[in-house]
């Protein structure tokens, strides 16, 4: 079976996230005050083959933990759906 994984990777709370900080600074120069706490992350999609959804989730956890994030500074969550053949 084929599954599509949509992974969102973000910096952990408390770690300086520079792009979000830059966006806030840019808005402040325009005197726009209603928006705050921008955090920029990554959105990565991938396909994975497996026997069932449980196994697909285990494989998604593996690739996120081992490749897609640095666990010192990042965390992840994902949505998973079966790809109709």
């Amino acid at each position, binding site marked *: 079976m084929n599954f599509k994984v949509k992974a969102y990777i973000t910096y952990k709370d408390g*770690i*300086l996230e*520079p792009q979000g*900080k*830059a966006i806030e600074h840019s808005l402040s120069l325009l005197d726009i005050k209603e928006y705050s706490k921008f955090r920029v992350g990554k959105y990565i999609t991938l396909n994975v083959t497996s026997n069932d959804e449980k196994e697909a989730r285990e494989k998604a956890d593996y690739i996120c933990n081992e*490749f*897609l994030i*640095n666990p*010192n*500074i990042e965390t992840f969550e994902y949505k998973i759906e079966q790809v109709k053949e």
Partner: protein
Amino acid sequence: MAFGVVQFPGTNCDHDCFHVVHDVLEQETFFLWHGDHALPSEFTNNPEKSVIILPGGFSYGDYLRCGSLASHSPLIKNIKEFAGSGGRIIGICNGFQILAEAGMLPGTLIMNTTLRFICKNVYLKVINNDSPFTSKYQINEVINMPIAHKEGSFYIEDEGLERLRENGQIAFHYCNVNGEVSPESNPNGSVDNIAGIFNKDKNVLGMMPHPERLSEKLFIDRIDGILLFKSLVTTK
């Protein structure tokens, strides 16, 4: 002593490093390709008498995270075994990022707090000279070296920092010309002004500054970087 300079796609300081150890210090030097699955016998037969350099650059274009894709290169497995056998490894700039991503050094290199690429000479204080990399420096010696990076801010959690201090793993602090370590002398926001660290056994060093760029008297007389490579050549 055999030196190996690892080349990843996007590495660009490899030839500078090769020049210092091969042409200036006249050591047997090899280029090592990241995609190989074995090290030459000069490294596996005698790991304690050989050194591997992970040079600076932009391996894999810094894609995903600096050093992350390079840390999964086939040769990294052999480099880890080499370190385990007592071989010496120095990671410079992107090389430091790769070692951190590979888990061979603690901590992570993240974006400079200034959000800018910084290219300038800085002062470093030598904190620990009890290593094959720093034996030719004096403790608390203030040395001069260039940095050139955007993601060079060293981050580690409090417990990790405490372990670095307890084990004597901090190699260099950013400081000013008088050796004062302060926020003002910190170019990139690194925790505790850390510019370089050792692993626990002190046979692996990662540092953001470029010693290979101050190792030959070309336009200036001060060549503080050469002492690091001379330390490696002479320390048993």
